[in-house]
């Protein structure tokens, strides 16, 4: 039986050192809602697990000049309770608050969701749409990575040995901006996305001036769909623009046929959810409240 060592870091520097010393056998422990499950099933066999929940900057949210920096290990429940953050990025927060259940959210973090590198991770399409920057620390210092470049395949990130994610930065929002995230699951909760779509919009006088679209669960990594954004920018979100953006989402899909959905279904749903998310984001810009998830 392999032995697992538990270590707890108090600073980012310490955590990086521990990870470096573990020589590739180290795993960061944030909420553990992926890691512990994977260890139990034998899918991951770490030599060392490095707990980062005692590093203050990794479990807090700060705001500076309108930009939010989220500690990578901050539990989703804590994010949901942050009113300012929720107001600025309702789509990112609703995505984080879809993870698992109330119990799971007491632990699960956005950083863990990202680093687990599942193409179906719920927060990631919303982070991609938000233009999130991933703040990485490692033996050679710090670097910043656009979130859409962070994962390189299912279960694979671009982190090098000794590197960890410290935080996620959401940029300052121009006025008239909002976002939304929708996922399709066969049930109403406790499920894994068949397709997930995040849309972030900036509008002026009813016209979209900026847009970003993140698309999950339809390719090996979460996609930034630039063609969908292009179709939305300059439009008033009329049917033609929405259809074009939906088609761009469907065209971007490279899904697999599996137990969770067929290629045909996923491709279609990507377009359906794009339209619905975009309209929710617009409603939010116009001050209309939305509870997002599985519109009935």
């Amino acid at each position, binding site marked *: *039986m392999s032995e697992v060592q538990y270590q707890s870091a108090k600073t980012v520097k310490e955590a990086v050192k521990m990870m470096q010393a573990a020589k590739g056998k180290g795993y960061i422990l944030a909420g553990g809602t992926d890691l512990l499950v994977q260890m139990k099933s034998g899918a991951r066999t770490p030599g060392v697990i490095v707990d980062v929940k005692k590093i203050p900057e990794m479990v807090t949210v700060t705001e500076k000049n309108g930009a939010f920096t989220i500690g990578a290990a901050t539990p989703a429940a804590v994010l949901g309770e942050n009113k300012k953050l929720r107001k600025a990025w309702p789509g990112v927060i609703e995505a984080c608050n879809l993870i698992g259940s109330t119990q799971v959210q007491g632990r699960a973090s956005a950083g863990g969701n990202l680093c687990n590198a599942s193409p179906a991770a719920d927060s990631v399409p919303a982070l991609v749409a938000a233009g999130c920057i991933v703040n990485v620390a490692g033996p050679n210092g710090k670097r910043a990575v656009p979130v859409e470049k962070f994962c390189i395949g299912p279960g694979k990130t671009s982190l090098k040995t000794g590197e960890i994610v410290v935080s996620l930065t959401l940029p300052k929002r121009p006025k008239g901006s909002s976002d939304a995230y929708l996922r*399709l699951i*066969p*049930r*109403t*909760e*406790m*499920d*894994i996305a*068949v397709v997930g779509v995040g849309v972030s919009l900036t509008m002026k006088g009813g016209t979209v001036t900026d847009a970003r679209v993140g698309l999950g669960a339809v390719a090996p990594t979460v996609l930034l769909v630039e063609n969908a954004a292009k179709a939305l920018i300059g439009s008033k979100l009329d049917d033609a623009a929405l259809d074009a953006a939906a088609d761009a989402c469907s065209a971007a899909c490279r899904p697999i046929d*599996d*137990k*969770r*959905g*067929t290629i*045909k*279904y996923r491709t*279609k*749903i990507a377009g*359906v959810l794009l339209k619905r998310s975009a309209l929710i984001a617009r409603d939010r810009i116009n001050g209309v409240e939305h509870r997002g998830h*599985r519109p*009935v």
Partner: protein
Amino acid sequence: MSHQEHRPNTEGKYKWIGTRPDRPDGADKVTGRARFGADFNLPGQLIGKVLRSPHAHAVIKSIDTSKALALSGVKAVITAKDFPDQPNLIVPTGEMQVNMRDITRNIMAREKALYEGHPVAAVAAVSEAVAKQALALIKVDYKVLPHVIDVAEAMKPGAPILHDHLLTEGASPPATKPSNIAKRIEFKKGDAKAGFAQAEVVIEKDYTTQAVHQGYIEPHATLASAAEDGQIQVWSTTQGHFQVRGFCARLLGVDTSQIRVTPTEIGGGFGGKTVVYLEPLAMRLSQKTGKPVKMTMAREDVFRASGPAPGGNVKVKIGAMKDGRIVAAECIVEMQAGAFPGSPVGPACMCSFACYDIENVYIEGFDVVSNRPKVAAYRAPGAPISAWAVESTMDILAQRLDMDPIDLRLKNAAKAGTKTAYGVTFNTIGMVETLQAVKDSEHYKSPVKPGWGRGVAAGFWFNIGADSSAASHVGEDGSVTVISGNPDIGGSRASLALMAAEELGVDYNKVRPIIADTASIGFNFVTGGSRVTFATGLAVVNSVRDMIRELKVRAAKIWKIDPEAVIWENGMAKPAGNQVGTFEPLSLADLAAQAGRTGGPINGHAQLNVTGAGPGFGVHCVDLKVDDDTGCVTVGRYTAAQDVGTAIHPSYVEGQLQGGAVQGVGWALNEEYIYNAQGKLENPGFLDYRMPVASDLPKIETILVEVPNPQHPYGVRGVGEVPIVPPIAAVGNAIARATGVRMVDLPMSPPRLSAALDAARPRRMAAE
């Protein structure tokens, strides 16, 4: 309104029956004190683990256990060689039948591994970690064979054959070559051909269903301790500890009296815990090591290797006159048995048209083996599958005739005196009353919301009686212990105590119901077939009556009068009238205090083979809407009505209706076993085997229709199984009415429903 309090048939008739006290096991269960299967441990125990076949179908050429045995901490390794072979002998298990020859092969593969997850060896070691390591050291030499998963494929000539000895029983002409069709059965009434010829409308359709798991929250778990003198103690989470004893005695070749099985609290079973998996392995490992051996299944093991309910293919044809009268019906069912014969195709066939009074019926069924785990009972085994097909076809007929779906069913409803296609003539039943209750309900009278659909379906289940024993003891202070032998999965302790309190005329809280182990009470058949409150309830009532007879004898002795001159009323012995003399009534406590002087302890006993189970009928009504773009279904309102005989404890009866409805909705919408091309199960966990979660459903409303069973002192009918029969078709019918698209394949999951909606779009647009 969640339940109907108004119960005209029993209102005011009883003091305790029909009330809703807390269940005797309730506090322990909500505080965590209750001990379930995996909570039992003994000093010095070993951990047992099972090595399972990674192949769907393979010859086991050899098994080398030497390396595993050599590992430090490993105390024993067993394979099929450690069990004697068994004869070709059919024994009942719950509502299904199994063959001993097959059971021994199912608990441990012998010549071949027949499904992925089939046990091939087991180890006992000092820890789980060592046991796991040992499994990896066992070398099994397999010759992988072509496999077959699908029933239709398995029936085709040229399909891979699972058992060379299997000749189709009931084939005409008699089978001469082995096949995967274990059995062909047939039920006939009247002349179906002539009936169809006379029909003005004929509807015919083919349906399919997938295997589904019972989904009990508690995985199988057991602890066995074999002593040097040959006695074996077992703790097991089971629906039938007497069955565990009986099966294991045969499998191990020991006397039943050598085995003492104690049932633990049970975290759900639904029929799936009426068979043995781990128990004989743990017992053999304990015999070999002289130590207690504990074994538990992981969830994946539960999915891969414990009995799911079968999937099946059903062809239904119904012929009717324009006024709605059904004149002929036909149903052909092909059903998965899993790796060994014995699917519930019999009950599926028998239940198919049992709700209706039809003159000409033809029913045919096929029991088909394939490389899947052996199926086990699941609430009303088989019936939901044929009901899905029949009740969907009934709905199509109602639409074709432009008739209200309840009126169509009322027109054809079975009544007292109706002869079923399987030969039984119904006594007093409540099909008509139950249909009428739904028709009169606020739900059914309310308008259907625009864009929504309302579906109705009915269902039937026989319910059973069988063997029960019970005892009642009066304590020194006059409080009462009622002892029976059926694990309590649905609140049966509360119902038994209520009947005892009613019979005895004492407070419910003075009666303590106990579930005894196999050595402490006479034989009881499994908790299954919705039999416990009915049959064991009758045994309890009779044991109390036996005790009352003795109490009267004791009072007579004290009063020095004839026992015949004593009556029992409101918990007291009283003289039968003035002519026998004037005596102060004697309470239970009075009599108990003097028991020593009047003849010793006061107990009552009963043992019976109970017949006269009253069949039950259910009618469900559901309102739902379908997301046209995604195929996601939202269930908005759901009402389950059922003929429940007498609701002894109405809350637990409602719980049965609600639970069955929820499981049926899961079966309808998302649940299915998904196999890959290698015959391996792709979704052995609750993430991808999608049972409903709480947020998927509204509160299930219930209507208890009380049509007492004349063959039970309190009118009890079984209630636990009927409620899973109607929901699948109710959901399908509502979808059809909401969208105009008739689904015939289960589950009606978002991808499948969305594809059907897309395929029908041109037709639907043209219709608009």
